[in-house]
């Protein structure tokens, strides 16, 4: 464990990722302190350029709201949604993948058909359907994103379980008389988790992207200061005041970059390979 941590810290890209993620986290935590007023409330004259008014360092949007405030509060939204949706997707995916990979036969076939069904349907389309049916509240959107993101996690978990199930240490535990539950949870799962944990970073990146795309299309919760929402608002004034769309986009980019770098860093730290430097 310590070895992995040290390997991670020695990787400059991974450190950059960690820095970016921590910065966004800090933004989110600082938001209620720095911008105590409602970020979606009227703050000043609309469409002021960044730097024009010292009160609004990043300018104002078409509705006269402070862009910087929305940026900071949006950080909370993105990270929270990303995290919870990832949790939902990972929990479902691991459960389904573990059962399918451990017990072959009928259980595997049924679960894999289910997974295939979810994967054949484009996940954004399913998300649209879920939002159409269940509404756009932020809780609904978050769970919906989790519900469309679990199939790759299930496949990965299943693949790991299939490989590990035939390993000799699992068979040895079986011969020692240990139950299926013990084998799944205490022998296979701890060995199957590392690649799944690494993949969770991909899931989180996708979750943040999905939410922002949904918000861009004005299909997410309008009462929540989402970055995607702001980009969508800036669309109408794109020709002149393009900064309204540009700034939140950069924020999304840096956040996802950070999450991806952290994921890659974790992968390199947990699966070291001699790369012949």
């Amino acid at each position: 464990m310590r070895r992995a941590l040290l390997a991670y810290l020695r990787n400059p890209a991974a450190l950059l990722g960690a820095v970016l993620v921590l910065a966004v986290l800090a933004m989110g935590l600082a938001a209620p302190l720095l911008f105590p007023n409602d970020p979606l409330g009227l703050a000043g004259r609309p469409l002021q350029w960044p730097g024009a008014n010292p009160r609004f360092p990043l300018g104002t949007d078409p509705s006269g709201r402070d862009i910087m405030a929305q940026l900071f509060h949006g950080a909370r939204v993105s990270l929270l949604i990303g995290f919870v949706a990832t949790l939902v997707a990972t929990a479902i995916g691991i459960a389904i993948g573990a059962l399918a990979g451990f017990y072959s036969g009928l259980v595997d076939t049924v679960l894999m058909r289910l997974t295939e069904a979810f994967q054949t349907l484009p996940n954004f389309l399913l998300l649209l359907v879920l939002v159409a049916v269940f509404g756009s509240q932020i809780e609904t959107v978050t769970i919906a994103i989790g519900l469309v993101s679990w199939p790759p996690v299930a496949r990965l978990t299943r693949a790991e379980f299939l490989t590990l199930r035939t390993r000799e240490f699992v068979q040895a535990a079986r011969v020692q008389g240990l139950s299926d539950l013990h084998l799944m949870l205490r022998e296979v799962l701890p060995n199957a988790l590392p690649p799944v944990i690494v993949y969770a970073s991909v899931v989180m990146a996708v979750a943040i992207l999905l939410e922002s795309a949904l918000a861009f299309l004005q299909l997410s919760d309008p009462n929540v200061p989402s970055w995607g929402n702001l980009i969508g608002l800036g669309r109408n004034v794109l020709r002149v005041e393009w900064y309204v769309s540009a700034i939140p986009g950069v924020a999304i980019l840096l956040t996802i970059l950070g999450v991806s770098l952290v994921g890659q860093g974790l992968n390199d730290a947990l699966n070291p390979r001699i790369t012949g430097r």
Partner: protein
Amino acid sequence: MSALSIEHLTVALPRGADRPYALTDVSLSIAPGEILCVVGESGSGKSVTATTIMRLMAPGVRVEAGRVMLGETDLASLPDEALRRLRGRRIAMVFQEPMTALNPLMAVGDQLAEMWRTHTDLSAEKIAERSLAALREVALPDPEGALRAYPHELSGGQRQRVMIAMALALEPELLICDEPTTALDVTTQAQILTLIRELQRRRGTAVLFITHDFGVVAEIADRVAVMQQGVVVEQGSVQQVLTAPSHAYTRRLLAAVPGLRAPPARKISPEAVLEIRNLGKTYRPAGIFRRRRAARALDGVSVTLRRGATLGIVGESGSGKSTLARCAVGLLAFDQGEIRIAGRPLPPARQAAAHLVQMVFQDPYASLNPRRKVGDQVAQGPIAAGTPRAKALAEAAELFALVGLEPSALARFPHEFSGGQRQRIGIARALAMKPEVLVADEPVSALDVSVQAQVLTLLRELQARLGLSILFITHDLRVAAQLCDEVAVMQNGLVVEAGPIGQVFEYPAHAYTKSLLAAVPGRGMLGV
């Protein structure tokens, strides 16, 4: 003038490896038309020697000093392009794993033809002729078919013949063989060794043959070099090194090689502790769309293990011996027949069966959970059966002492132990359940020969002290000869011959047993 002369070669490993140098001041020479065997255990540097000659080392491994003279040319200082032109034409190499050494997406004929296409200007028809002739020379059945076939359609032995044909296509001066028969069955190994020797004699090629098996050395070497930890400890003619070794390490290695003659039979009890009667197992392919091609792994097998004795099950791959082991231990369900332990049928419930029979596995690196302490893994069986945790751990500590490990090792993780130590832990784990029968599935096949000897000694001691009854699966007849009281020879899911080991090995009755024994390399020279 030697065909190959390695002079004071020092090769460094990348940073972070377990030692700084793979090879230290290694000097070897091979005369034209001579076979030099380089023999050593894992970590001796023998493979690095082979790959360094043609500069095919793993990334990060580099030559620090010395020369590699092929005739007049120093290969170590040759520029890349010049070296590339030499490869295949003046030196060729055959690798260890035939299953992965050929491009799976390219036909065998095309891969063979590449030799001529790269190094000569011959026309396509001429190349096709030569390819066919090359495959005939290595005695491939159906050479025309083989040319059109893809690698996965050939067996391991056949692929190795293709590799040899490719290597000798352009009649190189030197052929390097890096453990080419280690992954093959013993009968296939014998055929490949004969083939190499024949071809080499016919063309006068010098051969550098890497191996860990002294039997192979005795079988084909003209001269021998023994390596240990990157240093050549002894070099000389095969006669001299094998019968009158001068270095202590060589002597120790030779002493560790099990002889094929079994020690005098000891008295064993007539009581049967494990009876397998008419066992049958068929692997049926799953899915409604798969073609019906069932494989009979076990075709009515009957063997008896007596209490306090060791019964060896020997056979090659596909004989069904592993399937038999797994059925005996309850990991695999069987279709017909019965298994009785101490008179009672083997219970299907795992918890009940755990007290009756336990298993020691083959791969020391895969048989322990890398993320749990070894003490927990040994004690978890008894704990699941109801033993209080403290008592189970105390017993585990005793077992560790019994198998020659410190009791404090209970708290450590598998990666802190060597291969031989991990096998000891595996044995302790099996003994923790105090089973009636111990099934050992090739427990020493993945170990170096010196470590192998230690583990075999341990098994013998434990058997004497605890009265263990062992079902010992192996493909290595020498190992069987030294450890087993009785033996059953398996082929294609059937027992073809069984009886006391001394008798079966000295006076084999069945043709297959005879061919197995004849195929064991080095029978003559290594004191039978």
